[in-house]
């Protein structure tokens, strides 16, 4: 087991290094530099040249590459062209917001998906099953930004229940009398709609996976045994069938992570949620290479690690798999 984890970790490191290098090459090949965006007749060609030189973009390519690796190794990621601040700082300011929104959404979606999937499987072919299956198929295939816009239109514009965008209200944060709790409530209030968007898009897939996995499990011998022992239906469902049906759901969480990250970037953009996905879209359209590179690498690292964790968890949860 240990050996397996180490081997996989090594692979992850190699892949990350590869991605790092590919990113470097891509960004150097790409036309346009941070200065070319600054179209202002007051910027003379000499000044532009000087600026490029000062940004270190005129060094030999190997020096730049080494510098780049050094920056990443030290966890600094260089300086953002746009903000003129260390990339690490910009990212650390945005990352918690993304993590907060994201984990809440995935956990909620997984919990609801699993428990409803259980019910759907249990009531296979009956009204609840059909309703839940159709609901999850439909919500799962909704076009995410459109769903987000729709939610804003209905619940923020017409009903006025929630703020339209953003993460916090300045009035509350500037008011010294609002304590930690007040701020928490404020963030929660802003989070409802983005959360609802991500939740609606995701719970369906968990539900469907749980449902089919549960159906497979229900055919197993030990369920028949449990039935024979005269255990209650509820006990069979929750204590015997469900725990084993979890496995595929765990895998699917890992596999769908990339999809969720795409959705996360779209959600953050529509709701102006100050997270890493929105920042990356922004950095990309601003030619802010260091920031775009670092956020992409971070996303790649998270995805790779999550897949590793899923594999390990899978091995740990399923007694039949031994590495």
């Amino acid at each position: 087991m240990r050996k397996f984890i180490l081997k996989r970790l090594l692979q992850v490191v190699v892949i990350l290094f590869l991605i790092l290098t590919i990113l470097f090459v891509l960004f150097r090949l790409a036309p346009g530099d941070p200065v070319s965006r600054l179209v202002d007749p007051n910027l003379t060609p000499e000044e532009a040249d000087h600026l490029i030189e000062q940004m270190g973009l005129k060094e030999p390519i190997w020096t730049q590459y080494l510098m780049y690796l050094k920056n990443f190794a030290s966890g600094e990621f260089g300086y953002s062209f746009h903000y003129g601040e260390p990339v690490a700082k910009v990212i650390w300011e945005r990352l918690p917001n993304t993590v907060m929104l994201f984990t809440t959404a995935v956990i909620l979606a997984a919990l609801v998906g699993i428990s409803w999937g259980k019910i759907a499987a249990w009531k296979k072919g009956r009204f609840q099953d059909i309703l839940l299956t159709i609901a999850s198929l439909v919500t799962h295939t909704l076009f995410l930004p459109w769903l987000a816009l729709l939610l804003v239109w209905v619940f923020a514009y017409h009903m006025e229940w929630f703020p339209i965008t953003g993460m916090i209200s300045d009035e509350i944060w500037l008011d010294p009398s609002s304590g930690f709790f007040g701020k928490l409530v404020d963030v929660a209030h802003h989070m409802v709609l983005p959360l609802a968007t991500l939740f609606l898009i995701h719970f369906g897939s968990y539900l469907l996976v749980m449902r089919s996995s549960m159906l497979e499990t229900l055919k197993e011998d030990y369920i028949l045994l449990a039935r024979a022992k005269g255990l209650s239906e509820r006990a069979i469902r929750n204590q015997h069938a469900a725990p084993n049906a979890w496995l595929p759901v765990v895998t699917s969480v890992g596999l769908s992570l990339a999809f969720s990250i795409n959705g996360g970037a779209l959600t953050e953009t529509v709701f102006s949620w100050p997270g890493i996905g929105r920042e990356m879209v922004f950095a990309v359209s601003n030619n802010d290479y260091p920031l775009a590179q670092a956020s992409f690498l971070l996303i790649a690292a998270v995805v790779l690690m999550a897949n590793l964790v899923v594999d390990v968890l899978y091995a740990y949860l399923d007694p039949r798999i031994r590495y």
Partner: protein
Amino acid sequence: MAAGVGEKIRRALLGAAAALLCLGLAAGAARALSDDIIRVGVLEEPKSLNLWLANDTWSQRVVDLIYEPLYVHGPKGQELVPWLAAGPPQFDAAQLAYTVKLRPAKWSDGSDLTAQDVVFTGKLIQDFQMPLHSSKWKFIKKVEALDKHTVRYWLQKPKAIFLSRTLLTPIVQKKQWEPIAKSAQGAQKPLQVLLRHKMDKPVGTGPFMLASWKRGVFVYLLRNPHFFGRNQTIAGYPLGPYIKGMILKVFGTADAAVLALRKGEIDYYWNSIQPGYIQQIKDDPEVKLFVNKKSAVYFLGFNLRKAPFNDVNFRRAVATLVSKEFIIQRILQGEAEVMHSLVPPGNEFYYNPQVPRYGDGLDWNQRVQTAYQILKKAGYTWQVPPVNASGEVVKGQGIRLPGGQPLAEFTILTPPADYDPHRAMSGQMIQEWLRAVGIPALSRPMSFGAMVQRIKDQRDFDCFVLGYAKLSLDPGYLRAFFHSAMDRPRGYNMSGYRNPDFDRLADESENAMDPAVRRQLIHKMQAMIMQDLPYVPLYNPLVVEGVRKNRFSGWVPSLGGIGNEWSFCVIKLVK
């Protein structure tokens, strides 16, 4: 795995989520700030408050309220108003030197503004070859403090931009910047170190100072208690500021900001409102709209280095076919004015209305007929001419150059829709218009950085649609756009326009210290450009802004909108 525990965790989590949701719902009503703090909606936050890095619109808006120059443009536009300076600059023709006396003014930390600060700012720009600033300081031989409140500039040669741009450089405090500059000078890449310096507490002389900044959410500015202009009347405006402060709320999307304005969550939206919302806002009795002109130009450019764009007749025919009215009425929904010259009409002093116009006021059939005549006369031929024997307009096909070779397909580069949907869409329409007469144009959007590099650095392109959203009031840009000396990599003469007559006029205008003389020259330059047509000017967007009627009044409209220093210095709470 124990299912019981899982179940409990699940319940607890679901419960917590539900509780948060309910609380969230309850938190709807936001508490208000003190009444005399204006709440302003902005689309993006400033990228930095380091004055030298702050070159984007949103950062500039904030730093302009903190840092100030010696002279400013009055709200009406061209005239220069002494700001930190006590009066107009005194010219010493013999020595080619200017002397400026400063007003008694204080920095926001309470210390005095002195001539040393002004000298330091100039040296900083020169020493670091500060981007966007150094060109207006290059010709300054020497700048010296004669006494605590007198500065003297020695010029190498007469330059018009000394008055209209050099004297408008924002002044920074020596006390704050000297240590930063010192430590930067020792570094390998001094400018980079300087630009990367994080300015947490910018000290300025402006009417406002930074109180706090929560990244991505708001920038909170308070009135600078040491602001020199308080209770003074400058350019006819009794200055305050009468408001205690301002909070710039970052919205990220225009929808949210416009809605916040209508709901009264903000008092002013510091950005042009999208056409889709304007009708709604017009009907809203609580909101007042201000429409102002802007100093900007959007245009279609040609690569004069290659055929057929090196033929002025071809360029004129294209200009005739392009319906500026269509672009303005439909793509910009009427929120723009037609441009016939490259100097915006809002720049009244320098704008020349007497320039050649192309296709002005013609309908589609007339456009095609006119363009057809121009091209036919120049020797272009068609397989199927766009105007048939009986004079009717038909779809043209197979155009050939005067030499007889067929005209190959060429591209019109535009920025992508995420950067500017208007330009991308204009490119599409121009493509269609040209194709209708058989000119094989293809509009292609390209990411902005890549596009600019193709045009400015590599010069490998056919046509493009670009624009300058913020042109300075000084028309020095005409020289930058069309002087043959600027036809080099990273130079702004993207078309590759080379005309010795124009160069001569441009150089003359650059050195003309007398505004009236300069104006004459600038007028001539505009006419010449519109004759030769390296660029076809298209439109200049209008700035449509909205404010809450019941909150503040006394807004000062000016070129670029009501969001200017004058406004924020004079608006008062509505009683």
